[in-house]
């Protein structure tokens, strides 16, 4: 088939040049769009700004994943280790024990263990957490606010547009640089 191969004409070379130029120009334009914003040098991922979050519970259902990529996170350094933890207990618990009817968490994802009198440690069992933020609401309202919601990046698929960001009434979902993917609270920062 070699003898049937078309000759390369001047027109072909011109065509290649024009196509290449077109592609380069488009790449340049997009590059300008990328550089115009702040976080252009690195990839960005989605994250919840805990200071904006209003614990509306939409994170649990708006995410494209089931269960949601959003889960509660505990900043231990900010925790008061309260015996009566309003992140853990219902508003008016019958007694301060781990019986299911006393717990605020609908899936029992918070583990309460005794440390020393009168302190208790609260650990989130992430596979059970559905990201509803009920514990966050309790902790923010009556406690130190050491529980907060974060997008867990081992689960997040980093959609073009985050479905939670579209639903969030508080505009709390922001893009953050991928090398600093968490927005932590209080003493945990840094």
């Amino acid at each position: 088939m070699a003898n049937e191969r078309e000759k390369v004409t001047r027109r072909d070379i011109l065509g290649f040049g024009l196509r290449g130029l077109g592609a380069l120009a488009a790449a340049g334009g997009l590059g300008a769009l990328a550089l115009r914003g702040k976080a252009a040098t690195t990839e960005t991922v989605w994250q919840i700004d805990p200071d904006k979050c209003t614990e509306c519970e939409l994170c649990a259902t708006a995410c494209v994943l089931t269960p949601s990529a959003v889960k509660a996170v505990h900043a231990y350094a900010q925790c008061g280790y309260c015996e009566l933890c309003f992140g853990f207990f219902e508003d008016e618990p019958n007694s301060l024990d781990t019986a299911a009817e006393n717990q605020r968490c609908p899936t029992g994802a918070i583990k309460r263990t005794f440390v020393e009198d009168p302190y208790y440690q609260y650990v989130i069992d992430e596979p059970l957490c559905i990201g509803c933020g009920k514990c966050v609401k309790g902790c923010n309202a009556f406690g130190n606010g050491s529980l907060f919601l974060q997008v867990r990046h081992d689960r997040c698929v980093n959609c073009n547009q985050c479905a939670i960001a579209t639903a969030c009434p508080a505009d709390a979902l922001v893009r953050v640089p991928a090398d600093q993917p968490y927005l932590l609270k209080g003493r945990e920062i840094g």
Partner: protein
Amino acid sequence: MKRLRAIYYGLLLILPALAFGVERFPPPEFESHYHAPATQMPVPRAEWLFYLDIAVLAAALVLAGYLSLKRRSRRGLFALTVFSIAYFGFFRHGCVCPVGSVQNVALAIGQPQYALPIVVGAFFLLPLAAALFVGRAFCAGVCPLGAAQDIVLLKPLKMPAWLEHALGVLPYIYLGAAVLFAATGSAFLVCQYDPFISIYRTSGTPLLLGITAGMLAVGTVVGRPYCRFLCPYGVLLRWLAPFARWRVNIAQKECVQCHLCKDACPYGAIRLPTPAENPGGRREGRSRLARHLLLLPILLAAGGALGYFSGSAFATRHITVRQASRVWLEQQGKVKGTTLESDAVYQQGQPLKDLLRAASRIRRQFDIGGLLLGAWIGLVIGLKLVFLSIRRRRTDYEADPAACLACGRCYRFCPEEHARTEVLEKIG
């Protein structure tokens, strides 16, 4: 539990005095040797893996072009399709994809504070650049959305030309709407109603699963309904593919006018030879063109006007607009109670004046955006009519580069291909 209740109500009393998120209970200093567990921070996917995605996309595009144009191998393209479903579909969960990236580009143009991620930019650009050289290679075997439809196609029915042309206008409308809502920062429609993403994520809302099931069911008898009659990215590829360096040439030397390729194409992309004489006569053809040219500005104006008046309805897709109108109604006492969205406004303590100002700015954007979208729809319909009334001359059956998805099904039906691959001689 009286003591508890006392603590609880006592807390309620002091609460207003405390600022949001303050440490009400100082973290204890433990006497025992207690160490707090570290807060787990799973890291996102490594950055180099995103660049690997780009490399895989580029390689797949080159391979698709090679398989469809040089090797003319349907089997090879099918293998590539399966790979794309596995990698871009199930492994990458369908995100980021070039089809959705149109909206990221629109958002970056419309909202200066949004920086277009480099990976998304590359995903937007690579298939378009490839289209300038090898046509719609992306559609042929790389796009996971097209792949899902390609493998469910059982028995393609022939579609009447009028229906095909009428539905062919939809992608342009969808593209216009996607750009409008993305550029105003309201919604990513294409992602929200992506009919195949629920397969790749193995989850989805009932609405989305319904769309998926419907689209796959239709896809068994209509070749790639999403690609042909909805895909907004396909519009861009459609514009660029006619300028491709290499094209799908079904008969490489001489077409024998057997129309087997036309019967083989499930996507209606083969154009027929035109009759020697214009069926309605020259005069009739010319007056039809003139009528449609005159109709064009009327359609433009009508579309623009309709779009302008629909702008405020479109604006309710934006959350700020919804919040502002809800809070306004609550303040006026016209509605009782609060919603999640208005609660968020009160909780953040945003002044109502700022919210209303932001909302009216977005409404103005939507008035102009609606006008442009309406005019765009009018223009697309008008131009479709004009192009339909322009007579073209074709002597052979050929693949329309704009519509051809380069799936490679037609090749093996062409008698010339049989001669080329010496299949006939082997059979004889």
